[in-house]
């Protein structure tokens, strides 16, 4: 079992698809991951399962890979009614989770905005560019840079999950460039495809951060580090100015009201 633990998850699933199904049953969604080079050891570690769950999971994986091996079943089974525990974040991480809320409100509006673009005669370039400004300034510069420049620096930057996060941020930037190009050219399909792709990417990305990455980082931080990160994030926010988050909150409220009226008209 030891050497399986040190194998890349994608390779394990490729040779034994059953493992993917088992992981999914335990709420570990490695199958759709585009990279999949995390080691099985880290995949299990990062999800912080309780000891019973973890030993049941390892037993089932081992059984799936080596059906002929005689492996003793762990005594305690997977408890059916194990309720998902509420995640408690350290203050600086909590601030980042709260920022996700505003980003998710924009993501929620994207399908409506896309519909509006597709059905209007002329592309509303101004609206698209204002959304892009929100994404580039609030989501990327204000939020993602705190992750990249501060928080992620406190954990192993070569960890696969951190690499995936950097890659997501980059992929997102690519989609946004395409949206801008679409708006410049008046190419509705280009706007639609890339806006929806951005929405899908960021939705999954934020879910991964809230549920897996941030709690994993929090578990590794010392009290001193929590204080340091809190101070650095506050300094970063202060240099951006108090007006910045307020300006973008106002923007979100504005487009929510605008499109809510469209719908109820």
């Amino acid at each position: 079992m030891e050497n399986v633990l040190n194998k890349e998850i994608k390779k394990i699933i490729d040779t034994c698809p059953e493992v993917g199904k088992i992981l999914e049953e335990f709420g570990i969604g490695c199958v759709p991951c585009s990279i999949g080079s995390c080691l099985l050891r880290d995949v299990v570690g990062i999800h912080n399962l309780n000891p019973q769950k973890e030993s049941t999971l390892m037993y089932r994986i081992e059984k799936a890979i080596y059906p002929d091996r005689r492996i003793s079943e762990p005594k305690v089974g997977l408890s059916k009614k194990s309720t998902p525990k509420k995640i408690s974040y350290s203050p600086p991480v909590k601030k980042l989770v709260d920022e996700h809320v505003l980003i998710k409100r924009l993501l929620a509006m994207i399908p409506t905005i896309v519909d509006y673009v597709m059905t209007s005669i002329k592309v509303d370039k101004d609206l698209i560019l204002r959304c892009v400004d929100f994404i580039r300034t609030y989501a990327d510069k204000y939020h993602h840079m705190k992750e990249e420049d501060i928080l992620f620096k406190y954990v192993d930057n070569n960890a696969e999950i951190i690499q995936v996060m950097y890659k997501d941020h980059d992929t997102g930037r690519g989609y946004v460039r395409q949206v801008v190009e679409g708006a410049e050219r008046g190419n509705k399909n280009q706007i639609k495809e890339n806006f929806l792709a951005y929405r899908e990417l960021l939705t999954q990305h934020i879910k991964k951060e809230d549920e897996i990455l941030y709690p994993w980082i929090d578990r590794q931080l010392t009290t001193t580090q929590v204080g340091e990160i809190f101070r650095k994030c506050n300094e970063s926010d202060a240099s951006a100015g108090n007006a910045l988050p307020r300006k973008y909150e106002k923007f979100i409220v504005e487009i929510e009201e605008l499109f809510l009226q469209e719908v109820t008209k």
Partner: protein
Amino acid sequence: MSGCPGSKTIDFSEKTVQEGSESGKRPSQLRQWPIQMHLVSPHAPYFQGKDVLLAADCTAFALGDFHKDYIKGKSIGIACPKLDTDQEVYVEKIKALIDEAKINTLTVIIMQVPCCFGLVQIAKEGAEKATRKIPVKQVVVGLEGNILSEDWI
């Protein structure tokens, strides 16, 4: 049985030692004097930029590994929210620790008895009065020296 749980008599002398080791000597992790909240000055060099532990008096006796797990690497102030007088002074000192000594974090460690939560209240008040913001953590210790909870507040 009624009355204040903070002063209720409980005897767990029958409790047998479960784990841990008594071998070896453990050096003190205390790096300052004084420690009592009325005696300490927020301007003392040992507070500047540090992680500070505000400990209810009883916690040090209840916890077997108080030095190793809680004092190590921190500066400390101790107080009893039930018996100490002039507790407004504590609120002001906490405010000064945050604003003037620019401490990095504040950890408040208390016993599980209800009156001990007064110390968390004092810490919260001081932190709210301060203009700087810092992370504040609450640790609750059970009567038998077990950690009941550890949360950022």
